[in-house]
């Protein structure tokens, strides 16, 4: 069951917020994570697919069928909400079986299916519990099982881990991904947590101001962002403005670097992106892109330290991560410098 957005636009009444001419697709069994700053339109995207918000232009197709005239309760799309939205008047088993009861599945069959799903999410011992007795992580597992119970054509996960403690989040993240793969569920995940998106998704869509900036694999999004906006939103980085001096040579003002300029013209303004983990500490004198300077603010992170490195003439500090602090110089290998057009 593929999910396709074709030139989808939507604006909230009286505002400019929403979505602008968005086109993307989620393939069968694929998990696409949608990330972006607040107000970028990522939650709107989910609401439009689920049918909780209507009135868009363009088309949203699920398994080839345009959803525009299908009311929310007939779309058969499973949704997991940030705040779980479990029914407080029903116990765990009845919460999971709720969608099956609406479909008039006989009680023995729906109970059996609900128990199977409870087992799948590791909650079989909690069938008769009230949902109020469950922790946040347990409630979200039940919510996941409830959404899967209706054999949905697609799954929508709306910041499913945002309300959970960090310790639970990592574990549940892996479990959701494992279950999503097992059920081969076509899934759209909305999150503000880039690490969650990179770790869980087959592909990541970056949205800003209602526009799709990039749709690519987590590796490409991180290592080959198409713009400074994507680079700044995904992961930590330092971006220096520069100009192409010659083939594979860039002038940053305070240093001349060797970097893959590809087919850019001499004189073209570019931005050089450096990820902190790609900085080499105390390189040999012969190292390419060697720069002298001094260490500024330091943050101890356990296995490594994150620190600012000030290079004379550079307007901003270079953010670095390494096991030890440099004595007076760092270097960045040419293939770890990503040039972005202005």
């Amino acid at each position, binding site marked *: 069951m593929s999910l396709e957005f074709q030139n989808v636009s939507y604006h909230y009444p009286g505002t400019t917020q929403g979505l602008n001419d968005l086109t993307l697709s989620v393939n069968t069994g694929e998990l696409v994570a949608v990330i972006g700053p607040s107000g970028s339109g990522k939650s709107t995207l989910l609401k439009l697919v689920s049918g*909780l918000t209507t009135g868009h232009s363009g088309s949203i197709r699920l398994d080839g069928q345009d959803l525009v005239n299908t009311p929310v*309760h007939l779309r058969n799309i499973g949704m997991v909400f940030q705040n779980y*939205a479990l029914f*407080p*008047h029903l116990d765990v088993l009845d919460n999971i079986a709720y969608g099956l009861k*609406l479909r008039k599945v006989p009680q023995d069959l729906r109970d059996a299916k609900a128990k199977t799903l409870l087992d799948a999410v590791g909650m079989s011992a909690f069938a008769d519990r009230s949902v109020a007795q469950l922790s946040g992580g347990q409630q979200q597992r039940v919510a996941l099982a409830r959404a899967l119970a*209706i054999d949905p054509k697609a799954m929508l996960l709306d910041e499913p881990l945002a309300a959970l403690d960090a310790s639970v989040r990592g574990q549940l993240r892996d479990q959701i991904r494992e279950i999503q793969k097992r059920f081969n569920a076509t899934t759209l995940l909305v999150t503000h947590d880039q690490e969650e998106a990179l770790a869980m998704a087959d592909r990541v869509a970056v949205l800003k101001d209602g526009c799709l900036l990039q749709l690519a694999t987590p590796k490409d999004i991180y290592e080959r962002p198409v713009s400074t906006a994507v680079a700044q939103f995904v992961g930590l980085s330092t971006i220096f403005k520069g100009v192409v001096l010659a083939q594979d040579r860039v002038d940053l003002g305070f240093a001349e670097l060797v970097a893959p300029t590809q087919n850019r013209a001499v004189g073209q303004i570019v931005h050089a992106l450096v990820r902190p983990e790609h900085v080499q500490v105390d390189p040999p004198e012969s190292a390419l892109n060697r720069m002298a300077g001094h260490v500024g603010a330091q943050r101890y992170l356990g296995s490594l330290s994150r620190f600012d490195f000030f290079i004379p003439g550079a307007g901003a500090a270079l953010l670095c991560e390494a096991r030890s602090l440099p004595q007076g110089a760092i270097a960045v290998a040419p293939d770890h410098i990503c040039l972005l057009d202005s």
Partner: protein
Amino acid sequence: MIRGISLVYGGYLLLPMALLLMGSVGNSWTNTLLPTGLTTRWYQDVWLDTSFRKAFVTSLVVALSACAINTVLALPLAYSLYHRAGRAGSWAARLVSAMPVAVPTITLGFGYLIVFNTDWLPWLGSLPLLIAAHAIYTLPYLTNTLLTDLKHLQLNALEDAAATLGASPWAQFSGVVLPNLRHSLLSGLVMVAALSVGEFGLSNLLTSFQFRTYPVVLLQAFYGATGFACAATVILLLLAAMSALLSSSLGTKNEP
């Protein structure tokens, strides 16, 4: 200091009730600070008085009818106010909340007196008009109780979840909204009953001799024996107190 104020306030509230209770079991209370003697005959007299028994039944009929009407009216009203659209809905919700304070029962009563005492609408003194007046008087209280609970439970999130699972709007209302409102509905209805049973101003203006409510008949009792009046008042007081306790205990059951 605060404890002292609380004690004085408590005494101010409880003293009249204590005096009523003493008067209802006192044999005689004439020109003395407290009643003298002990008797249960005032309660027996109230029970044997047909006008009191009839008024008690009328009050119950009016209260239960107001509950039934308000259940039908308040649920959709509160639900639509909760899902209010824009300023108009918000204004309507504020109006409903302010109604009990802003419109005294005497104002409502005079309004009905003018409208329903004409040849076109000669319903003054009829039981249906009395029931309708009580229903309208108590409607904002029940609506407010339901509205508060709807906001507290964030039912729109549950409705959204139900909708994505296949629930039609009616299935969302009957299968999710109603079961989650059952405590506040019961609590609100008990409050409606208590308000209706104890209501005097409106009833006094609208009742005929045939359909006098308990508080209206109670006023007559104070022209007779003090003990009888006290016993009749204590019965009303007990009824109202039990309703209030029941209402608050039902309300607290809904706390998460």
